[in-house]
Protein backbone atom coordinates (compact mmCIF):
# COMPACT_ATOMS: atom_id res chain seq x y z
CA UNK A 1 0.00 0.00 0.00
CA UNK A 2 1.24 3.46 -0.87
CA UNK A 3 0.31 6.87 0.49
CA UNK A 4 -1.88 9.19 -1.52
CA UNK A 5 0.02 12.00 -3.21
CA UNK A 6 0.83 14.94 -0.97
CA UNK A 7 2.99 18.03 -0.90
CA UNK A 8 5.97 18.18 1.41
CA UNK A 9 7.25 21.16 3.31
CA UNK A 10 10.30 21.16 5.55
CA UNK A 11 9.86 23.75 8.31
CA UNK A 12 12.85 25.46 9.90
CA UNK A 13 10.94 27.12 12.75
CA UNK A 14 7.79 26.50 14.79
CA UNK A 15 6.18 29.59 13.26
CA UNK A 16 6.87 28.30 9.74
CA UNK A 17 5.30 24.96 10.62
CA UNK A 18 2.19 26.52 12.16
CA UNK A 19 1.86 28.96 9.28
CA UNK A 20 2.08 26.17 6.70
CA UNK A 21 -0.61 24.21 8.55
CA UNK A 22 -2.91 27.23 8.62
CA UNK A 23 -2.35 27.98 4.94
CA UNK A 24 -3.23 24.39 4.04
CA UNK A 25 -6.66 24.90 5.52
CA UNK A 26 -5.89 22.30 8.18
CA UNK A 27 -5.61 19.57 5.52
CA UNK A 28 -2.08 18.92 6.76
CA UNK A 29 -0.19 16.71 9.16
CA UNK A 30 3.04 17.34 11.04
CA UNK A 31 5.61 14.59 10.67
CA UNK A 32 8.63 13.93 12.89
CA UNK A 33 9.68 10.31 13.43
CA UNK A 34 6.73 9.09 11.39
CA UNK A 35 6.88 5.56 12.80
CA UNK A 36 3.11 5.54 13.31
CA UNK A 37 2.13 8.20 10.79
CA UNK A 38 3.82 6.62 7.75
CA UNK A 39 1.96 3.29 8.12
CA UNK A 40 -1.28 5.25 8.64
CA UNK A 41 -0.58 7.15 5.39
CA UNK A 42 0.35 3.96 3.55
CA UNK A 43 -2.91 2.34 4.61
CA UNK A 44 -4.68 5.60 3.67
CA UNK A 45 -6.20 5.80 7.11
CA UNK A 46 -5.00 9.36 6.68
CA UNK A 47 -4.57 11.23 3.41
CA UNK A 48 -3.55 14.85 4.05
CA UNK A 49 -2.64 17.09 1.13
CA UNK A 50 0.38 18.49 2.91
CA UNK A 51 3.02 16.91 5.11
CA UNK A 52 4.96 19.38 7.27
CA UNK A 53 8.32 17.99 8.35
CA UNK A 54 9.22 19.38 11.79
CA UNK A 55 12.36 17.26 12.24
CA UNK A 56 14.71 20.16 11.51
CA UNK A 57 13.26 22.65 14.01
CA UNK A 58 15.97 23.24 16.60
CA UNK A 59 13.53 24.63 19.19
CA UNK A 60 11.94 21.16 19.47
CA UNK A 61 15.23 19.51 20.41
CA UNK A 62 17.18 18.92 23.57
CA UNK A 63 16.71 17.81 27.16
CA UNK A 64 17.46 20.32 29.92
CA UNK A 65 16.58 21.35 33.47
CA UNK A 66 14.29 24.32 33.82
CA UNK A 67 13.69 25.10 37.50
CA UNK A 68 11.88 22.19 39.12
CA UNK A 69 11.12 20.58 35.77
CA UNK A 70 13.01 18.59 33.16
CA UNK A 71 12.09 19.88 29.70
CA UNK A 72 12.19 17.08 27.15
CA UNK A 73 12.01 18.43 23.61
CA UNK A 74 9.34 16.83 21.44
CA UNK A 75 11.90 15.56 18.94
CA UNK A 76 13.79 13.53 21.57
CA UNK A 77 13.99 10.08 20.06
CA UNK A 78 13.03 6.91 21.93
CA UNK A 79 16.65 5.71 21.78
CA UNK A 80 17.68 8.97 23.49
CA UNK A 81 15.10 8.34 26.22
CA UNK A 82 17.15 5.20 26.88
CA UNK A 83 20.57 6.82 26.85
CA UNK A 84 20.17 10.42 28.04
CA UNK A 85 21.70 10.80 31.55
CA UNK A 86 19.35 13.65 32.55
CA UNK A 87 16.33 11.41 31.88
CA UNK A 88 17.86 8.53 33.83
CA UNK A 89 18.42 10.87 36.78
CA UNK A 90 15.35 13.08 36.76
CA UNK A 91 12.71 11.03 34.92
CA UNK A 92 13.76 7.43 35.64
CA UNK A 93 10.28 6.03 35.01
CA UNK A 94 10.55 7.17 31.38
CA UNK A 95 13.99 5.58 31.06
CA UNK A 96 12.57 2.36 32.53
CA UNK A 97 9.73 2.33 29.99
CA UNK A 98 11.91 3.14 26.96
CA UNK A 99 13.29 -0.38 26.30
CA UNK A 100 9.73 -1.64 25.98
CA UNK A 101 8.83 0.78 23.17
CA UNK A 102 8.71 -1.23 19.91
CA UNK A 103 12.01 -2.42 18.42
CA UNK A 104 15.48 -0.83 18.23
CA UNK A 105 15.12 0.51 14.67
CA UNK A 106 11.76 2.07 15.52
CA UNK A 107 13.31 3.64 18.63
CA UNK A 108 16.01 5.18 16.43
CA UNK A 109 13.39 7.25 14.57
CA UNK A 110 10.31 7.55 16.76
CA UNK A 111 10.00 10.66 18.93
CA UNK A 112 8.75 11.16 22.47
CA UNK A 113 6.60 14.15 21.51
CA UNK A 114 5.09 12.24 18.61
CA UNK A 115 4.17 9.32 20.85
CA UNK A 116 2.49 11.62 23.37
CA UNK A 117 0.70 13.60 20.65
CA UNK A 118 -0.62 10.42 19.02
CA UNK A 119 -1.90 9.17 22.40
CA UNK A 120 -2.07 5.52 21.42
CA UNK A 121 -3.72 3.89 24.45
CA UNK A 122 -1.43 0.87 24.06
CA UNK A 123 1.79 2.93 24.07
CA UNK A 124 4.11 3.22 27.02
CA UNK A 125 5.02 6.92 27.00
CA UNK A 126 1.58 8.58 27.00
CA UNK A 127 0.62 6.53 30.06
CA UNK A 128 3.91 7.37 31.77
CA UNK A 129 3.32 11.12 31.35
CA UNK A 130 0.24 10.58 33.51
CA UNK A 131 2.17 8.66 36.16
CA UNK A 132 4.82 11.37 36.49
CA UNK A 133 2.34 14.28 36.41
CA UNK A 134 3.97 15.76 33.32
CA UNK A 135 2.82 18.87 31.48
CA UNK A 136 2.51 18.96 27.71
CA UNK A 137 3.84 22.14 26.08
CA UNK A 138 1.87 23.08 22.99
CA UNK A 139 2.36 25.70 20.28
CA UNK A 140 -0.53 26.80 18.11
CA UNK A 141 -2.04 29.66 16.18
CA UNK A 142 -3.22 31.18 19.47
CA UNK A 143 0.21 30.99 21.12
CA UNK A 144 1.87 28.67 23.58
CA UNK A 145 0.19 26.81 26.44
CA UNK A 146 0.84 23.97 28.86
CA UNK A 147 -1.66 21.24 29.62
CA UNK A 148 -1.36 18.74 32.46
CA UNK A 149 -1.23 15.12 31.31
CA UNK A 150 -4.33 14.52 33.46
CA UNK A 151 -6.24 16.88 31.14
CA UNK A 152 -4.52 15.94 27.87
CA UNK A 153 -5.87 12.47 27.02
CA UNK A 154 -9.57 12.70 26.17
CA UNK A 155 -10.62 9.63 24.17
CA UNK A 156 -9.29 7.14 21.64
CA UNK A 157 -6.48 9.01 19.81
CA UNK A 158 -8.17 12.23 20.94
CA UNK A 159 -6.23 14.77 22.99
CA UNK A 160 -6.48 18.38 24.08
CA UNK A 161 -4.55 19.30 20.90
CA UNK A 162 -6.59 21.50 18.58
CA UNK A 163 -6.21 21.36 14.78
CA UNK A 164 -2.96 23.02 13.75
CA UNK A 165 -1.40 22.72 17.22
CA UNK A 166 1.94 21.10 17.81
CA UNK A 167 3.44 19.37 20.87
CA UNK A 168 6.74 21.17 21.44
CA UNK A 169 8.01 19.61 24.68
CA UNK A 170 7.07 17.60 27.76
CA UNK A 171 7.83 19.07 31.19
CA UNK A 172 8.50 16.52 33.92
CA UNK A 173 8.69 17.37 37.65
CA UNK A 174 12.20 16.38 38.75
CA UNK A 175 12.44 12.95 40.40
CA UNK A 176 13.30 13.30 44.09
CA UNK A 177 15.15 11.21 46.67
CA UNK A 178 11.90 10.50 48.56
CA UNK A 179 10.30 9.01 45.46
CA UNK A 180 10.21 5.47 44.09
CA UNK A 181 9.13 4.18 40.70
CA UNK A 182 8.31 0.89 39.02
CA UNK A 183 7.42 -0.13 35.47
CA UNK A 184 6.55 -3.36 33.70
CA UNK A 185 4.30 -4.76 31.04
CA UNK A 186 2.94 -8.12 29.99
CA UNK A 187 3.24 -8.88 26.27
CA UNK A 188 3.19 -12.08 24.30
CA UNK A 189 6.52 -11.20 22.75
CA UNK A 190 9.05 -8.50 23.56
CA UNK A 191 8.40 -5.42 21.42
CA UNK A 192 4.75 -6.26 20.78
CA UNK A 193 2.01 -4.07 22.15
CA UNK A 194 1.41 -4.97 25.77
CA UNK A 195 -1.64 -6.96 26.85
CA UNK A 196 -1.43 -4.69 29.86
CA UNK A 197 1.25 -2.33 31.15
CA UNK A 198 1.73 -0.12 34.18
CA UNK A 199 3.99 2.54 35.62
CA UNK A 200 3.99 3.84 39.19
CA UNK A 201 5.53 6.89 40.84
CA UNK A 202 5.27 7.03 44.63
CA UNK A 203 6.36 9.64 47.17
CA UNK A 204 7.30 7.98 50.46
CA UNK A 205 8.16 8.85 54.06
CA UNK A 206 10.12 5.81 55.07
CA UNK A 207 7.83 2.93 54.18
CA UNK A 208 4.68 5.05 54.25
CA UNK A 209 3.16 6.11 50.93
CA UNK A 210 2.38 9.84 51.01
CA UNK A 211 1.40 10.10 47.38
CA UNK A 212 1.14 7.65 44.55
CA UNK A 213 0.26 7.86 40.85
CA UNK A 214 -0.50 4.60 39.03
CA UNK A 215 -1.03 4.64 35.27
CA UNK A 216 -2.03 1.73 33.05
CA UNK A 217 -1.93 1.30 29.27
CA UNK A 218 -3.64 -1.17 26.95
CA UNK A 219 -6.66 -1.25 29.25
CA UNK A 220 -9.06 1.19 27.60
CA UNK A 221 -9.49 4.03 25.13
CA UNK A 222 -6.92 6.26 26.81
CA UNK A 223 -3.93 5.93 29.12
CA UNK A 224 -5.61 5.33 32.45
CA UNK A 225 -4.86 6.53 35.97
CA UNK A 226 -6.51 4.39 38.65
CA UNK A 227 -7.41 6.98 41.26
CA UNK A 228 -9.58 4.72 43.44
CA UNK A 229 -6.75 2.23 43.69
CA UNK A 230 -4.26 5.01 44.44
CA UNK A 231 -6.49 6.20 47.31
CA UNK A 232 -6.34 2.79 49.02
CA UNK A 233 -2.56 3.09 49.28
CA UNK A 234 -2.13 6.63 50.64
CA UNK A 235 -0.87 6.79 54.22
CA UNK A 236 -0.11 3.08 54.35
CA UNK A 237 2.96 0.89 53.96
CA UNK A 238 3.04 -1.74 51.27
CA UNK A 239 2.36 -4.91 53.20
CA UNK A 240 0.73 -7.93 51.49
CA UNK A 241 -2.72 -7.13 52.90
CA UNK A 242 -2.60 -3.57 51.59
CA UNK A 243 -1.36 -4.73 48.18
CA UNK A 244 -4.20 -7.26 47.96
CA UNK A 245 -6.68 -4.49 48.79
CA UNK A 246 -5.23 -2.31 46.02
CA UNK A 247 -5.46 -5.20 43.55
CA UNK A 248 -9.12 -5.68 44.48
CA UNK A 249 -9.80 -1.96 44.07
CA UNK A 250 -8.70 -2.09 40.42
CA UNK A 251 -12.08 -3.47 39.47
CA UNK A 252 -13.66 -0.13 40.31
CA UNK A 253 -11.14 1.80 38.19
CA UNK A 254 -10.78 -0.32 35.07
CA UNK A 255 -13.36 -1.39 32.53
CA UNK A 256 -11.29 -3.07 29.81
CA UNK A 257 -13.01 -3.22 26.42
CA UNK A 258 -14.17 -6.54 25.02
CA UNK A 259 -11.99 -8.04 22.32
CA UNK A 260 -11.79 -11.45 20.67
CA UNK A 261 -8.20 -11.85 21.73
CA UNK A 262 -8.32 -10.76 25.35
CA UNK A 263 -11.63 -10.87 27.24
CA UNK A 264 -12.15 -8.04 29.77
CA UNK A 265 -11.95 -10.40 32.75
CA UNK A 266 -8.57 -11.70 31.58
CA UNK A 267 -7.19 -8.19 31.07
CA UNK A 268 -8.41 -7.15 34.52
CA UNK A 269 -6.77 -10.24 35.99
CA UNK A 270 -3.49 -9.43 34.23
CA UNK A 271 -3.71 -5.84 35.51
CA UNK A 272 -4.07 -7.15 39.07
CA UNK A 273 -1.10 -9.48 38.63
CA UNK A 274 1.02 -6.66 37.24
CA UNK A 275 -0.02 -4.21 39.98
CA UNK A 276 0.82 -6.80 42.64
CA UNK A 277 4.29 -7.32 41.21
CA UNK A 278 5.01 -3.60 40.88
CA UNK A 279 3.77 -2.69 44.36
CA UNK A 280 5.85 -5.58 45.71
CA UNK A 281 8.92 -4.11 44.04
CA UNK A 282 8.09 -0.61 45.33
CA UNK A 283 7.75 -2.02 48.85
CA UNK A 284 11.24 -3.45 48.58
CA UNK A 285 12.45 0.02 47.68
CA UNK A 286 13.23 -0.94 44.10
Amino acid at each position, binding site marked *: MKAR*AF*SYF*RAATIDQALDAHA*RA*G*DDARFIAGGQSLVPALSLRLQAPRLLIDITHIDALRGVRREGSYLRIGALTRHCEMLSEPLIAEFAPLLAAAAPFVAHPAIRN*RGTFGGSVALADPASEFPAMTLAIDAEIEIAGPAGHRRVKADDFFIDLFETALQPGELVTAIHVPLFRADQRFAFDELARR*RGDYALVGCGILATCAGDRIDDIRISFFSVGNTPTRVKGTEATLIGASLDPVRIAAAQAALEGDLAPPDSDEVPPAMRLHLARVLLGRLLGRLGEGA
Partner: protein
Amino acid sequence: MNGSDETLLDDVDETVRVRFIVNGRKVACEVAPRETLVDCLRNALELTGTHAGCEMGACGACLVQLDGRAVHACLMFAVQADGAKIDTIEGLTESGAIADLQAEFHRRNALQCGFCTPGMLVNAHELLTQIARPSREEIRDALSGNYCRCTGYEAIIDAIDAVAKARSEEGGAT
Protein backbone atom coordinates in the same frame (compact mmCIF):
# COMPACT_ATOMS: atom_id res chain seq x y z
CA MET B 1 -10.76 23.01 3.27
CA ASN B 2 -11.46 26.56 4.29
CA GLY B 3 -9.06 29.16 3.06
CA SER B 4 -6.47 26.69 1.80
CA ASP B 5 -3.53 28.20 0.02
CA GLU B 6 -3.26 26.48 -3.34
CA THR B 7 0.23 27.84 -3.99
CA LEU B 8 1.46 25.68 -1.13
CA LEU B 9 -0.29 22.62 -2.51
CA ASP B 10 0.27 22.93 -6.23
CA ASP B 11 3.27 20.60 -6.22
CA VAL B 12 1.22 17.65 -4.96
CA ASP B 13 1.82 15.66 -8.13
CA GLU B 14 5.29 16.95 -8.86
CA THR B 15 8.65 15.50 -8.06
CA VAL B 16 11.24 17.00 -5.77
CA ARG B 17 15.00 16.85 -6.21
CA VAL B 18 16.72 15.16 -3.25
CA ARG B 19 20.39 14.57 -2.54
CA PHE B 20 21.91 11.89 -0.34
CA ILE B 21 25.28 10.36 0.31
CA VAL B 22 24.52 6.71 -0.41
CA ASN B 23 27.24 4.19 0.37
CA GLY B 24 29.81 6.96 0.35
CA ARG B 25 28.78 8.44 -3.00
CA LYS B 26 26.86 11.67 -3.60
CA VAL B 27 23.65 10.99 -5.48
CA ALA B 28 20.70 13.10 -6.54
CA CYS B 29 17.35 11.96 -7.81
CA GLU B 30 13.84 13.13 -8.49
CA VAL B 31 11.21 11.68 -6.19
CA ALA B 32 7.54 12.23 -5.54
CA PRO B 33 6.98 13.21 -1.89
CA ARG B 34 4.89 10.06 -1.40
CA GLU B 35 7.77 7.80 -2.44
CA THR B 36 9.28 5.90 0.49
CA LEU B 37 13.02 5.67 0.96
CA VAL B 38 12.99 1.93 0.26
CA ASP B 39 11.27 2.49 -3.09
CA CYS B 40 13.72 5.25 -3.96
CA LEU B 41 16.70 3.06 -3.13
CA ARG B 42 15.37 0.10 -5.08
CA ASN B 43 13.80 1.83 -8.07
CA ALA B 44 15.72 5.03 -8.68
CA LEU B 45 19.11 3.97 -7.36
CA GLU B 46 18.82 0.25 -8.25
CA LEU B 47 20.09 -0.79 -4.83
CA THR B 48 17.88 -3.85 -4.51
CA GLY B 49 19.68 -5.33 -1.52
CA THR B 50 17.29 -3.37 0.68
CA HIS B 51 14.12 -5.44 0.65
CA ALA B 52 10.55 -4.19 0.84
CA GLY B 53 8.60 -6.65 2.97
CA CYS B 54 5.63 -5.64 5.10
CA GLU B 55 6.10 -1.91 4.40
CA MET B 56 4.67 -1.32 7.88
CA GLY B 57 7.80 -1.37 10.03
CA ALA B 58 7.10 -4.83 11.39
CA CYS B 59 9.36 -7.20 9.44
CA GLY B 60 12.72 -5.40 9.34
CA ALA B 61 13.66 -6.47 5.79
CA CYS B 62 14.15 -2.83 4.74
CA LEU B 63 16.64 -1.76 7.42
CA VAL B 64 19.35 0.65 6.30
CA GLN B 65 21.68 2.90 8.23
CA LEU B 66 20.62 6.53 8.21
CA ASP B 67 23.30 8.84 9.61
CA GLY B 68 24.79 5.80 11.30
CA ARG B 69 21.66 4.35 12.91
CA ALA B 70 19.51 1.45 11.72
CA VAL B 71 16.11 2.61 10.50
CA HIS B 72 13.22 1.20 8.47
CA ALA B 73 13.49 2.51 4.91
CA CYS B 74 9.77 1.75 4.49
CA LEU B 75 8.84 4.07 7.37
CA MET B 76 10.17 7.26 5.91
CA PHE B 77 9.70 9.18 2.71
CA ALA B 78 12.74 9.80 0.55
CA VAL B 79 12.21 13.57 0.86
CA GLN B 80 12.67 13.29 4.62
CA ALA B 81 16.13 11.82 4.04
CA ASP B 82 17.26 14.72 1.84
CA GLY B 83 20.80 15.58 2.93
CA ALA B 84 21.31 12.39 4.92
CA LYS B 85 24.04 9.79 4.81
CA ILE B 86 22.58 6.40 3.95
CA ASP B 87 24.40 3.08 4.05
CA THR B 88 22.63 0.08 2.53
CA ILE B 89 23.60 -3.57 2.67
CA GLU B 90 25.59 -3.01 -0.53
CA GLY B 91 27.70 -0.30 1.10
CA LEU B 92 28.22 -2.23 4.31
CA THR B 93 29.31 -5.21 2.23
CA GLU B 94 31.76 -3.18 0.10
CA SER B 95 33.28 -1.59 3.18
CA GLY B 96 34.03 -4.98 4.75
CA ALA B 97 32.45 -3.84 8.02
CA ILE B 98 30.20 -6.88 8.19
CA ALA B 99 32.35 -9.43 6.37
CA ASP B 100 32.72 -11.59 9.47
CA LEU B 101 28.97 -11.51 10.14
CA GLN B 102 28.26 -12.49 6.54
CA ALA B 103 30.79 -15.34 6.66
CA GLU B 104 29.33 -16.63 9.91
CA PHE B 105 25.74 -16.42 8.60
CA HIS B 106 26.92 -18.45 5.61
CA ARG B 107 28.89 -20.96 7.64
CA ARG B 108 26.02 -21.64 10.06
CA ASN B 109 23.30 -21.65 7.43
CA ALA B 110 21.69 -18.65 9.13
CA LEU B 111 19.96 -17.76 5.89
CA GLN B 112 17.56 -19.93 3.98
CA CYS B 113 15.58 -17.95 1.42
CA GLY B 114 17.71 -14.90 2.27
CA PHE B 115 14.90 -12.38 2.09
CA CYS B 116 15.28 -11.20 5.68
CA THR B 117 19.09 -11.43 5.65
CA PRO B 118 20.00 -7.83 4.69
CA GLY B 119 17.83 -6.47 7.51
CA MET B 120 19.16 -9.05 9.94
CA LEU B 121 22.72 -8.04 9.07
CA VAL B 122 22.06 -4.31 9.43
CA ASN B 123 20.43 -4.96 12.78
CA ALA B 124 23.21 -7.31 13.97
CA HIS B 125 25.82 -4.77 12.89
CA GLU B 126 24.13 -2.04 14.93
CA LEU B 127 23.74 -4.31 17.96
CA LEU B 128 27.41 -5.29 17.98
CA THR B 129 28.41 -1.64 17.56
CA GLN B 130 26.50 -0.76 20.73
CA ILE B 131 27.06 -3.86 22.86
CA ALA B 132 30.32 -5.71 22.26
CA ARG B 133 29.25 -8.93 23.97
CA PRO B 134 25.46 -9.16 24.04
CA SER B 135 23.85 -12.10 25.82
CA ARG B 136 21.70 -14.44 23.73
CA GLU B 137 18.72 -12.80 25.41
CA GLU B 138 19.91 -9.37 24.27
CA ILE B 139 20.43 -10.68 20.74
CA ARG B 140 16.89 -12.06 20.69
CA ASP B 141 15.57 -8.78 22.04
CA ALA B 142 17.41 -6.77 19.39
CA LEU B 143 16.09 -9.04 16.63
CA SER B 144 12.48 -8.80 17.84
CA GLY B 145 11.67 -6.46 14.95
CA ASN B 146 13.09 -8.71 12.22
CA TYR B 147 10.95 -11.52 10.84
CA CYS B 148 12.46 -14.66 9.32
CA ARG B 149 9.75 -16.71 7.69
CA CYS B 150 12.07 -19.71 7.22
CA THR B 151 12.33 -19.93 11.04
CA GLY B 152 16.09 -19.55 10.92
CA TYR B 153 16.27 -17.63 14.18
CA GLU B 154 18.33 -20.12 16.15
CA ALA B 155 21.12 -20.19 13.57
CA ILE B 156 20.96 -16.39 13.20
CA ILE B 157 21.41 -15.92 16.93
CA ASP B 158 24.24 -18.50 16.92
CA ALA B 159 25.98 -16.59 14.13
CA ILE B 160 25.72 -13.19 15.84
CA ASP B 161 26.80 -14.70 19.16
CA ALA B 162 29.83 -16.35 17.50
CA VAL B 163 30.90 -13.09 15.82
CA ALA B 164 30.55 -11.17 19.08
CA LYS B 165 32.81 -13.70 20.80
CA ALA B 166 35.34 -13.74 17.98
CA ARG B 167 35.54 -9.95 17.84
CA SER B 168 35.99 -9.72 21.62
CA GLU B 169 38.72 -12.34 21.60
CA GLU B 170 40.57 -10.39 18.94
CA GLY B 171 40.28 -7.39 21.24
CA GLY B 172 38.81 -5.55 18.31
CA ALA B 173 35.25 -5.13 19.53
CA THR B 174 33.89 -2.13 17.73
